[in-house]
Structure formats: C-alpha cells, structure tokens
C-alpha cells in the first residue's frame, strides 16, 4: 500500500485514519520559528461524512487509502439506494444516501458522476462540475429584464434550488456549477 509524507498532503488526497478512508479537505503548514513543524489538516471521513481536524508532525508518513475513482453513469434511485453503472464493464453499484451527501440534489439519470470505491463499495459520489437541468418551478419570468440585477429562487427538476435571473421561465434548461451551487447560464440548445 502506498504511503504519503505530510509534504505530499493536498486537497483531495485519500488517506487512512483510524481505520477509515478519509479525504483531505485542507492542509495548513504550521511551524513555530525554531520549533517542530506540523501539518494541521481538515479531513472528511469518507465512511461517515464527518469532517474532523487532525495535526501531524511534518515529515511523518501516513498510509494511503486504497480507493479508486471511476466515472459512472447514474441510472436511478429506489429511494434507499442510488444505482450507478460503470460504462466499460456494465458493472452496477448501489450507493447509500451517506455516500451521496450534497451530490443527491444534482443527479439526473444518465449523467456521469465520479464514484469513489473502497473495497468495491461506493463511499463517495461527486457530480460533474456542471450540470444541465430544467426549471420545474419559479415565479413567472420578467420579459425584457436581462439586466442581471436582483434574482429569484428556481426549483430544478432534481429538487435543487438555485438563484436565477428574473427573466428565467419554467421549462428552461439551465447550466449550474455544482461546486458553488450557482446558476451559470441558459443552455445553448
């Protein structure tokens, strides 16, 4: 199994901590002027979803988490599990609600997501950075208002709520950045 030195710590690195696979969110190098250097890291436990803070002595080594990230097609949800398919092998995987977390609100059938497997079990689902989703509900569009000022909430077909410009109408397809949850623009087609 690969080990990583604290020098290699960065956001997204997957390591083992207390027997659980974890993903580093933030890594801060801290050092008293003439003292021991430390890496103070924010880590997400990928099994529980909990975010914790830990401090390591710099230059210590930590075991990497044996996880693989695969692009998979989202198939459907049965309410309890969300089902994905690996497009090359057609192998199917069922992810729990905990693995989905915030990703749930962006999932549309046939979208490609990044699924992290640990011991062949999906523990994390990340949506594409940008998704195209239709507006299911919003206040009527204000014609001619393209100033971009103000805004209103719109509920998308997946249930996500984003802030959109006043001129957007029900049925329009929007491009949304899933990392910030922000409206980017109208779909070109």
């Amino acid at each position, binding site marked *: 199994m690969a080990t990583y030195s604290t*020098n290699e710590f960065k956001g997204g690195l997957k390591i083992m901590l207390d027997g659980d696979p974890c993903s580093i969110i933030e890594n*801060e190098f801290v050092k008293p*002027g003439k*003292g*021991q250097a*430390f890496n103070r890291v924010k880590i997400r436990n990928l099994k529980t979803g909990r975010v914790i803070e*830990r401090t*390591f002595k710099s230059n210590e080594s930590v075991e990497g988490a044996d996880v693989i990230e695969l692009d998979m097609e989202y198939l459907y949800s049965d309410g309890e599990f969300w089902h994905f398919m690996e497009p090359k092998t057609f192998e199917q995987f069922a992810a729990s609600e905990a693995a989905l977390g915030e990703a749930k609100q962006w999932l549309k059938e046939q979208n490609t997501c990044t699924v992290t497997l640990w011991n062949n079990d999906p523990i994390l689902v990340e949506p594409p950075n940008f998704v195209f989703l239709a507006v299911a509900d919003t206040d009527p569009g204000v014609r001619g208002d393209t100033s971009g000022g103000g805004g209103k909430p719109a509920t998308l077909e997946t249930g996500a709520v984003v802030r959109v410009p006043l001129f957007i109408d029900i049925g329009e397809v929007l491009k949304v950045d899933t990392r910030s949850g922000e409206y980017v623009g109208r779909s070109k087609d």
Partner: protein
Amino acid sequence: MERPEVMNWKPTASIEVLRRRAQMLADVRRFFADRDVLEIETPTLSSAANTDPVLHSLSLTSDDSKKQFYLHTSPEHAMKRLLVAGSGSIFQIARVYRAGERGRFHQPEFSLLEWYRVGFDYHQLMAEVVELLQLLVPELLGPRAALKMTYADVFRRYVGIDVGSAAVADLASALASHDIQFVADELDHRVLVDLLFSHVVQPQLGRDDITLVYDYPVDQASLAFVRAGSEPVAERFEVFVDGVELGNGYRELTDAIEQRHRFETDNQRRLLQGLPAMPIDEAFLAALRHGLPECSGVALGLDRLMMLLVGVDDITQVISFPID
C-alpha cells in the same frame, strides 16, 4: 508537467505589489543608514550547514566533484564572523533556503532581513524592531503599542499551565482541553510544547498590538545566551502580529565551547531522529574563539511584512514566482 503552451508563466504578485516591495527595501535601507548600520552581503553557499534538527538545508553537488555544498538557512554564522572582524553593527537582506517549508506563510526560498547591534541588549533590540515595523507597515502597525510577555507568561495566560514544570501528561491534557487531535506514536515533551505554542498560543498573539515574547526555555536557546539563575532562560525573543511570527532575535551566545556543545547535541538529536548529521561550521566556531563582541541580533521575514503591508493571506501574493 503541463504542456508548454499552457504553462502559467505569470507572476503571482501584481506589479503594484512588487513596486511596494521595492519601496519597502528602500525604507529598510534608509532606516539603517540613518542609524549607521552597515549593509553587508555574505554567501548563500557554504560547505557547513545548520545542525538544528527542525531546519532542513538544501544541499548541492556539482557535476565535476563529489564535494557537497549547502544553501544557508540564515546568514547568521557569516555575519557573526564579520562582527568578530570588527564590522560594527551590520544588516543584510538575504535570500535563505529551508527545505520542506511550504504553506500560506512559508516558501522554501524566502527573504530575511537580519541585523546585529553591537552593545545592544535584547530589550534594546526589541525596541528597535518595533520602531522598524511601525515605519515599514505604518497604517496597520503605526497605531499599535508593543506588548512584552515572557514565554512562561503566554503559556500561563493562553494555555493555563506552568510550562516550566509541566510534564508530558500535563501537556497532553492541555491539548485535549483545547480540542487538538494530534496523531503521533509517542508524545515528546518538546514537540507538545511546540504544538501548544503554534496551535493555541500563537493565534492569540499580536491581535491588537505588536507582541514580543521573550525569555525562552533553555532547550529552545538555539544560538542565544542563556541567563543563569534559579530558573535559567534563553535571552531570545520572537515578534508576532495578527497571530503570525515575524521574526526571531537573541542576545547572542559568545561562548565558543558552549556553541560547539550545542551543535554536537543537535547532531546527536538528528541521528536519533534518523536525520543525517550536518557538517559543523568550524570557521564560525574559530571566530567565536577569537571573540564575538557583546551584541544582539534578529531576523525578520520580509515576505510576511509585505503580506501585512498589502493585506494578503498567502505569501505567493507578495513574491514574483513561487516554487512549483
């Protein structure tokens, strides 16, 4: 490696910030010219290296020789040789190198402003540091007063323990009560003290003032004079603003025998930690035997001063090109 045509070649500091950096260097030179402190330059390359186990020197070899050289971690030894040679008070703006130091406040290559005042004790030097900081960062630091606290004071105040007598168990429970989760196989006294200082104490220092912490534990003396007494302390200080360490100073150790002993102890600690021993700077020790005048010296991180001046929270925003 990215494709050459998409490599980002642009500086990480704006040209405006670089202009203000040039102004800061000019202000530093004027400050010392007004005080008859001589600007000097010393080599960055040395065949000796820093023995301190928490500092890691970058080493170099050439393609035509087996000889190894090191990039200095500070210009301290060479500057003290000049003091012994009769330079009087001196300052230097030096590029220094420390492997493995990288973060929002660290780059492996950075700029130190280091100066030595012959005949100053460390309290006089602390006063001069405050004067210089107020000149260089007038808007932020001009209105701030200096606050002086001993190392023992800050531990009592912010951690609630007597650091002089605290055992490993006391330090560990202080960590737990401040909700710090430390991942380590074994707990070392010195490491826990550094952990509490950097995680609990330091963020509180220099919030509304310029905090000077002084009189350090003897095991953190480094190159400072140790004042004997019932509770000996190292006559060392550090200066903090907004929770960031800006510099470190000493009343300088002048005893060559004691200095050699500290270098050798450092190297023994290195070997215990699985680090290579470093070649001891014999020319520096020879100079100390010749006689270093009573003096105090300090080094400030110029990049961090720049960060305060322009109000940014990442060191790469005040240097033209950080390391990849």
